[in-house]
């Protein structure tokens, strides 16, 4: 097996990064029998808390030991305390008390990750951006897809995700604020790739490969026009070499759905919590669109 590693990034918050990662991963595991690993790199631990009950999560990541925090802490301290197998959470516990989705694995985050950005500057580039790949790269091979859920910033943990990734996916809300941020993001990724990845022989050259539109509403002109402006921008950025040549807006656009929001409180992906909802339908179709775009590229 050779995993496709995808970083879900946007330094704008509230654009649906975690919702996309959690629900896409669950759908790939459930309906397409793909083995998927979610790596939660966000100190807010939203992917972890979406898929784990808070008491179980707290117990699991106590002191950050069995979480992605330990990967960075080890790099700073020069130690090897992180143990992939004990940190890994396999499947999702449903209301039955038993696990479902055995092909969905999670490396949870912990709030201790907040401390990392302050301390990590003790390390120097380029090594500081290779921490995640160095610690997790060998384990990625056991999966079909590895989805890296990044914090809403472009600091060191996010750059580690970009460095590890084959491609980046940008969750996006169709409005002008997202559009302006998207241009900056494309430039930052291109600059990062140029400085730290392009010269490495055999290294993946991560770039933006797709966008996922969330919180879409079909009423009026608002979102259609914003999507049109995004499409025109995409064409320009592709022509300028700032995106992958095949970069596209994945279909369908994810509509606003209250059942998705509810599913966070049930600690279940929407495909398990409300399979009849439009949210579940959209993520199912998105997973298919995702496979059509990325699975053929392996």
């Amino acid at each position: 097996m050779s995993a496709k590693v995808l970083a879900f990034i946007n330094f704008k918050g509230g654009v649906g990064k975690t919702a996309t990662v959690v629900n896409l991963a669950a759908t790939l595991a459930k309906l397409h029998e793909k083995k998927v690993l979610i790596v939660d790199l966000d100190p807010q631990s939203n992917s972890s808390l979406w898929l784990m009950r808070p008491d179980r999560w707290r117990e699991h990541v106590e002191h950050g030991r069995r979480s992605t925090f330990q990967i960075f802490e080890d790099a700073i301290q020069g130690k090897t305390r992180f143990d992939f197998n004990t940190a890994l959470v396999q499947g999702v516990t449903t209301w039955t008390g038993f696990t479902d989705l055995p092909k969905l694995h999670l490396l949870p985050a912990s709030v201790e990750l907040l401390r990392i950005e302050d301390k990590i500057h003790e390390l120097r580039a380029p090594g500081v951006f290779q921490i995640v790949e160095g610690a997790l790269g060998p384990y990625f091979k056991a999966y079909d897809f590895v989805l890296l859920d990044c914090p809403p910033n472009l600091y060191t943990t996010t750059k580690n995700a970009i460095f590890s990734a084959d491609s980046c996916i940008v969750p996006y809300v169709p409005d002008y604020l997202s559009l302006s941020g998207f241009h900056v993001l494309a430039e930052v990724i291109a600059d990062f790739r140029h400085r730290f990845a392009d010269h490495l022989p055999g290294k993946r050259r991560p770039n933006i490969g797709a966008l996922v539109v969330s919180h879409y509403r079909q009423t009026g002109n608002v979102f259609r026009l914003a999507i049109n402006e995004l499409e025109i921008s995409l064409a320009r950025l592709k022509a300028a070499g700032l995106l992958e040549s095949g970069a596209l807006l994945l279909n369908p656009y994810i509509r606003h759905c209250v059942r998705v929001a509810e599913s966070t409180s049930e600690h279940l992906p929407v495909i398990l919590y409300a399979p009849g909802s439009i949210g579940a339908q959209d993520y199912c179709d998105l997973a298919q669109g995702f496979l059509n775009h990325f699975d053929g590229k392996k």
Partner: protein
Amino acid sequence: MNYSDLAQKLLRLAERLEKHSAKIEGEALARPARKISAEADRLEAALDSFLASRKSGELILETLLRSPAAKKHLSVDVLRKILREVADKRLKSEDLAAAKREFIEVVHHHKEAEQATKTLKKFFMQAVEVPPGGKEKAALQREFIQLGSLADDEFAKEVARRTFGELRRLADANGIRFTDKTTKPRLILLVRRYSQRAILNISAAA
């Protein structure tokens, strides 16, 4: 709890029962023992059924038929077509829920779960494919941006050269919503406003 934890728990219990089986007795032990024995039979039957349907490919087929994607895209006609293709059989049910049950039964009978799953997956793959706007859409988006960059008098000259139909295609390709009642002057206003906005937003963002 995951199933591995349960297996460990049962193994530990089994070992203790085995070790002390010659000396344990009484109703207090027998009652839960009787219950666990009955539940173990049920669990074993459910496990056998699960493993058999997984092995034959029927589990994923049923999962797909019950999936949110099926709710959105699947119809009796589609199932009828797939069944004819994979098993050369005619689907009799007219109701979707009944058709799904009949579909599974026929596929099971003909041992064609793998082929049916493959065909169903192909159907779902095609169902989400959106025909690309292609060169025409890209050209209309370029035209829109070009119109947005023109001064008022140049814009007026440019749109005067276009038919109402051409303007409607331009507006539609660029996300402008209009109805059959939208007049040409109104559509021109909308194109003017939103093409200028696109220029402003895209250049400001870049």
